[in-house]
């Protein structure tokens, strides 16, 4: 139970048969971005990317069943071929509308293959967001330790 609560963030690690520079370009170049964004039944037909720290991006994925879905955010950290941090929110009336999330992606290249670690978590209002950058991971580490301890006590 505790583990499930601590896990209200998303972590997806995946290794691709490509150098980090290519993976980075797939996120930063709108022409590449449009070719893969969205699951199989969607196509990404619009993508405007202002790729600089503080710059915004805005894109749309479309499917016959789910219609047009716009999303966007702001780039917060850019470290070429290594690390990318941006906000992500849906601009529609869906159940996740208005919930701003923070996406952190890191790339680790090894022998021509690259492991992409993708992390996404919800976060507080705009005013409190800045105080979270930096303090966020250590807070999670503390929580993880606390949850682990409780789980141990709980199952002992």
């Amino acid at each position, binding site marked *: 139970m505790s583990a499930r609560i601590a896990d209200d963030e998303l972590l997806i690690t995946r290794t691709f048969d*490509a150098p980090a520079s290519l993976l980075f370009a797939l996120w930063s170049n709108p022409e590449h971005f449009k070719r893969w964004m969205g699951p*199989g039944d969607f196509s990404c037909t619009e993508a405007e990317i202002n790729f600089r720290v503080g710059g915004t991006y805005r894109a749309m994925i479309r499917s016959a069943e789910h219609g047009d879905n716009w999303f966007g955010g702001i780039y917060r950290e850019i470290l070429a071929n290594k690390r990318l941090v941006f906000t992500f929110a849906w601009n529609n009336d869906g159940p996740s509308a208005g919930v701003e999330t923070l996406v952190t992606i890191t790339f680790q290249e090894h022998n021509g293959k690259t492991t992409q670690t993708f992390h996404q978590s919800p976060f507080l209002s705009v005013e409190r967001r800045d105080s979270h950058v930096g303090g966020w991971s250590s807070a999670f580490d503390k*929580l993880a330790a606390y949850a682990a301890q409780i789980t141990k006590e709980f199952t002992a």
Partner: protein
Amino acid sequence: MSFTLSALADPTRRAILARLAAGDATVNELAEPFDISLPAVSRHLKVLESAGLISRGRDAQWRPCKLNTEGLKSVDDWLARYRRFWTGSFDRMDSYIAELKEQEKRDERKNRR
């Protein structure tokens, strides 16, 4: 839904929920592991309560807090949706990379001729 998520976005509130997963607790017990005041903990509890993540007992003096697992269900659904979205996108990323590599090979062959 967005209310539940913003309630969960705070690390202290998440730790409070983790504690309640181990059993009901009073405000004092919940405050103990944190370096924050009782009123601050009470404020966190109010947020959790209005988000439907916890409920509080009627006993005016103790009002023990209880985890409301129903409230967490919506968070699970939210996560599942995002997981499908990204996993599906990364599948396409994989195919697109294969496509780019094919293209590169074709171009190399062309250049050699």
